[in-house]
């Protein structure tokens, strides 16, 4: 078991975004979260990533397991270049050689190593940077919220190759998607959420 959610729940004032939910992610899993807008997919992923504190329940990680998190809205510093973002996050995460790691991820995600601030990149380019940041540190578990929504066909294929490589290296991936064919093509398990509950 890489990660387990036990009775995890989240309220925003009076609104219950996610009712108590249990979920276990095993090595090799590719879990797809599907459901209409507002079903609670993003909330569940943010809770699993630890970027949102739960209102109840708990999220447990296997000892030493690392998590990479790609939120739906790209999170990076708009006044820094793609390389500077990657190097900064690599340094913060304690990676051994941040410049080398940044170069590798720029190449892997097809990002240009230029002087443009990331804030002026196209939506697709920003999403690639978003995914590259999630892949820093070669995480055991990749959590991605609609990772391919803004990507072109080639970039999508590249992402799924990277996800498969994570799984093959003893990791797992949990992703939310609205794309109809992705659960069937890339998921080992499909979880459907409706009004904050697992269906």
């Amino acid at each position, binding site marked *: 078991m890489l990660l387990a959610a036990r009775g995890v729940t989240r309220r*925003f004032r009076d609104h219950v975004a996610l009712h108590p939910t249990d979920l276990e992610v095993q090595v090799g899993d590719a879990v797809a979260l599907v459901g209409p807008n507002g079903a609670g997919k993003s909330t569940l992923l*943010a809770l699993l*990533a630890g*970027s*949102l*504190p739960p209102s109840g329940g708990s999220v447990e990680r296997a000892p030493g397991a690392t998590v990479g*998190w790609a*939120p739906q*809205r*790209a*999170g*990076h*510093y*708009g*006044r*820094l270049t793609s390389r*500077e973002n990657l190097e*900064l*996050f690599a*340094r*913060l*995460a*304690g990676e051994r050689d941040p410049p080398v790691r940044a170069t590798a991820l720029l190449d892997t995600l097809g990002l240009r190593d230029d002087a443009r*601030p990331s804030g002026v990149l196209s939506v697709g380019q920003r999403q690639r940077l978003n995914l590259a*940041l*999630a892949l820093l540190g070669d995480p055991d578990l990749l959590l991605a919220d609609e990772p391919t929504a803004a990507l072109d066909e080639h970039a999508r294929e590249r992402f799924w190759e990277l996800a498969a490589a994570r799984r093959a290296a003893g990791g797992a991936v949990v992703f939310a998607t609205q794309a109809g064919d992705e659960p069937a093509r890339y998921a080992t398990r499909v979880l459907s959420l409706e009004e904050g509950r697992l269906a």
Partner: protein
Amino acid sequence: MRRAGLILGKDLRVLRRSPLLLAAAVGYPLVVAVLVALVGAYAGTKPRVALVDEAGLPPTLQVGNRVFGIKPAIDRAGREVHIVRLTNREARHQLDTGRVVAIVRVPHGFVSDLRAMVRSPQLELETSPSPFSGRIVREVQAFVYALNRELQGAYIGSNLEYVNLLQRGGKGTFLGRDFDVLGLGRTDRLLATEPQTPAVVSVRKFVRAARLALAQTGDALRATANPIALVHVPEHGRTWAFSAQVQAYALTLTVGLLALLLAAGSLAAERDENVIGRLPATIGELLAAKVALGAVVAATLGTAMALAFGIVIETAAVRGGEPWQRIPLVTSGLVLAGASLGALGCLVAALARDARTALLAAVALALPLAFVAVVPSDAVRVAGAIGSLFPVVHALRFFSAALYDVSPWRTLAAEAAWLVAITAVLWALARIAARRLLV
């Protein structure tokens, strides 16, 4: 702390890449500092005082053998207050509406009392219940004191005429009646022609003793009229533009507002850029980076300002020079003040919903804090009490003491302790409020 340092490095790099933001961030507080200095200067200008002349003051007035110009006397008073001549009704209206802060009324009979020198003529002073009233009373008291000194001179001169008359003899006038006085000199001469009987000798002894005593009367009268005389030495110190207080205000307001705005804006920007949830750093490290940002920027900019001020002082050969050896003290104060204002900025940003709201709230908070700092605490006690709970007042006192107090250590220790304590409290509150950043 390594990660806080990395985030601080990122913030400084972002700041360097935003010249417009940096210019605005530096320029805005500087403009505010200048405006506050102007307000301070305005506070030092003459308050308007109404003069109600019910006595019908003549252009000149003779007291004894001296003639006083009324207008020059009023002009002399006008160096301290701006005197406007008004009717009683107009003066009353302007006092009620705050256009003038006091009324000086010259009542009927004032001139005749003054000329007669039989009883003291009276001026009436009416003040409004404003922070200026104490100052106005002092100004008018000073005016009356100065006028009295001139009048005393005239009265003494007039009285000495009678003394001279007693010594030398001749014609005189008192209360409108003319009279002829023999005088001690003439008396002595008359007695010298008489047979020198024991009685005549005794009277001549008395006359000579009286002449000697009366010869000292002038000095004695002047000494008792003015037991202590104040001699005004020509202006000696710095012009207000280079005063220690202006430098302390400029430092406090500029770096204070800058640290507050930068810390608030940069923490709120972390949320706007959606990085907080994925940043490999704790909330504590993130807040530490923003507090450090306030301290670093305040120390850098503030020290540069102090050095620039010092260069101007030295170049212009301003009296007193710049206390260069105190600059390290100023820098340490800038670090403390910047950190404290940075912590306040973090609290504002954590409570605000987004960067725009955070900046607006920071500006809204900064302005009253700036003005509370420059309002004298003894003038408005509530403002002084509120101000002491925030870092600006203590930073101002710290810089003022560091730059120009002869023995600043006690004040520096007290204000540094205040700044550290306030930073600790604001930090703790920001930590609690920062939970909202993850929502």
